[in-house]
């Protein structure tokens, strides 16, 4: 009895010994920065010296209170960044997912020639530096750039893409007689109410033209990456199922709807979750392409948090922003997992697998959100 115990203890010890490099690296580069960032968000650290030195005081929720309740520019900037990012997520996640699925379905056809060429071509943007791609897009979408030259062939006078702060929803609402377009004032009932320092009218601005170009870029870049995930999922589906379907006389569309998509649900879940997390954290494109300009319409919480901390020296509210963002991501992921789970409630065979993926992705969401500053 005793010997068995000590043998097990020895096993446990060597087990820990083997995992210790990973535990230490993760602790040092992941857990510690998150914990310190959280400490900064509840302290009065001003960026000088170590945040753990004796001169730094605990201030409780003051930074959060200042960020969310006091009528300051910081709050309205944060609200603006949340608005921008919301429209960004709303457009990027569905479009990139559908596009990735479509590409994967195309490339999954066995008769297609040059398969590996297309796979590489679609995946290429995902492995290229996002900074390099952002720079290329800056040229493409310059006022006198290729995109406008192309539009000019069709007689369309393209906008000054990156200089255009007009919200597209404002423009659309103006066209149907609500408000006076993107530049003029909005209707009285919407400008007289506000939420987090931003009027209702400002909330419904929609993504600006400048933001749309960033959205186009991100979709183009990330669709290829998610395509690979879908492709792997598709190749996991046994051909027996398809054969059975064709014997039953299922049409192409019916096979797709009743076999392919349901069997791809675990992959779909992964893609949506990763997409949600990634899009709420968008930073590098904004940093390279716009720095939040024009008119703050490409400001995102991740970039604002960086700007507030590094450039304004307001570390408390800056880190508080990243933790509010963290909460938002958790909430969105939870809602999304609930929606996908409910559809599985009739107890299909892969339910367990879905749950497994869910757990794993939720964990990864908590670990990737912390160090946004």
């Amino acid at each position, binding site marked *: 009895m005793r010997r068995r115990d000590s043998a097990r203890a020895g096993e446990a010890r060597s087990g820990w010994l083997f995992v210790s490099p990973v535990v230490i690296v993760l602790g040092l580069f992941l857990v510690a920065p998150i914990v310190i960032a959280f400490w900064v968000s509840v302290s009065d650290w001003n960026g000088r010296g170590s945040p753990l030195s004796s001169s730094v005081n605990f201030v409780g929720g003051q930074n959060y209170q200042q960020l969310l309740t*006091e009528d300051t520019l910081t709050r309205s900037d944060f609200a603006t960044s949340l608005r921008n990012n919301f429209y960004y997520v709303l457009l990027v996640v569905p479009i990139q997912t559908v596009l990735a699925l479509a590409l994967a379905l195309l490339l999954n056809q066995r008769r297609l020639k040059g398969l590996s060429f297309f796979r590489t071509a679609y995946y290429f943007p995902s492995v290229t530096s996002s900074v390099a791609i952002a720079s290329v897009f800056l040229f493409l979408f310059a006022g006198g750039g290729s995109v406008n030259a192309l539009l000019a062939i069709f007689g369309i006078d393209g906008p000054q893409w990156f200089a255009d702060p007009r919200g597209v929803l404002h423009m659309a609402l103006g066209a149907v007689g609500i408000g006076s377009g993107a530049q003029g004032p909005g209707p009285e009932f919407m400008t007289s109410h506000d939420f987090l320092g931003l009027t209702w009218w400002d909330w419904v601005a929609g993504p600006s033209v400048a933001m749309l170009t960033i959205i186009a870029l991100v979709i183009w870049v990330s669709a290829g990456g998610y395509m690979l995930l879908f492709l792997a999922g598709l190749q996991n589906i046994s051909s027996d199922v398809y054969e059975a379907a064709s014997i039953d006389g299922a049409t192409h569309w019916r096979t797709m709807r009743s076999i392919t998509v349901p069997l791809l649900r675990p992959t779909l879940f992964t893609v949506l979750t990763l997409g949600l997390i990634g899009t709420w954290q968008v930073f590098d494109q904004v940093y390279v392409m716009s720095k939040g300009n024009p008119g703050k319409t490409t400001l995102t919480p991740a970039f604002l948090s960086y700007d507030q901390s590094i450039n304004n020296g307001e570390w408390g509210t800056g880190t508080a922003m990243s933790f509010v963002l963290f909460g938002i991501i958790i909430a969105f992921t939870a809602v999304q997992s609930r929606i996908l789970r409910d559809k599985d409630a009739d107890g299909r065979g892969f339910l367990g697998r879905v749950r497994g993926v869910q757990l794993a992705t939720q964990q990864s969401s908590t670990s990737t959100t912390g160090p946004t500053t």
Partner: protein
Amino acid sequence: MSRKTTTAAALACLTLVLALAACGGGGGFDEGATNGPTQPPASGPVTIKFMITSGGPADVKLQQDTVKAWETKTGNKVEVIAASDMNQQLTQGFAAGSPPDLFFTDANVFPTYAKAGNMLPYGDQLDMKSDFYEGLVKTFTYDGKFYCAPKDFSTLALIINMDLWTKAGLQVGDAPKTWAQLETVAQKLTSNGVKGLVIGDTRDRVGAFMKQAGGWIVSSDQTKMTADTPTNLAGLKEVQKLLASGSTSFPKGVDSGWGGEAIGKGKAAMTIEGNWIKGAIKNDYPNLKWQAVELPSGPAAKGTLSFTQCYGVASASKNQAAAIDLVKYLSTPEPAMALATGLGVMPSIKSAAAAYKGAFPNDAAFLAGAEYAQGPVTVAGMDPVLKDFDAQLLGLPGADPKAMLARLLKSVVAVLELALAHPPWGGGAAPLPAAPPLLPQLL
């Protein structure tokens, strides 16, 4: 099971403690900033880390060349580092307790650094303090202390593309002296593909019109906010009028990054820029024939804006004595002139003014502007407010300038209230730090 959990927890705690110890181990930043070097002077030759913002390798070489004489004289070494993102690199250095010893500090960010105690207020140790222009000294004074030696300064002027000017049938003497003349001239110069006037879409250009109308964002002692005055409104309305007439646009409207690019590419006949345009035109558009004239005066008076940087010394630096000695050397006429010549800006010391005037007779407009230039707002926490104002200005063609000023006022008041409610020095409500008056007289 429970033992495993305990071990895991113990290991996690150990890792965390190790990490925190590593972070907290810097030491030596708890001393408050005093008026002297806080670190004992290092004995023997030292290496000064000197971080500069640069437009390219030429600027770095220029800086290296200027410090050579000092290196030979003192035996110290200077390592010139070109920052790719000055703010970020400095911030990381401040947090780690290892910032560069000496660094360029823009007037915009100076109050933020000074407030956090990152900069050593060494200004009063300089024997040439009285040689600096009064206004520049005041710009770099925070909480009653003269923090750092101004490096140089620039002012805005009206830059004219002379080829387009003569093509439009205008004479040298036709340079606009009033807003009305500016409107007429800009209209005359506007043709297919060319805008008469291109101005940057920030308060650093548009603000000049507010100044010409007799207004400014803050009162001259920077304690009162004067954003929503009719004078400021008049300034903004003039810009709006110019934009609406079609003769004027922001740089992005002619597909340029800034006014210099617009005029260099021939897309603008006039622009409003500062001394830095000289170097840009020389490098990028050497064939452009241009001339700088003073900005037109508004209903109130002549008005322009000035910009400046200083030599910041880090309060966490171990080589403060040597760094201050280097600043003293750089603030003497010969190196100051060499730097000013290379960078195209004006030296910050009065004793170099005559030499500068002699060397650059074409810079008369910039120098003349120094007499009535408005310096930057240097109140801690104002930078995001001013950036927000910039974002508002972008909507100028259509938006209501009155609403912009109201929003500016609201934000500024909030900054001041916040400073009172949460004073960085702890305790209850305390008076605002004495704000330095703006540049009244530069020359």
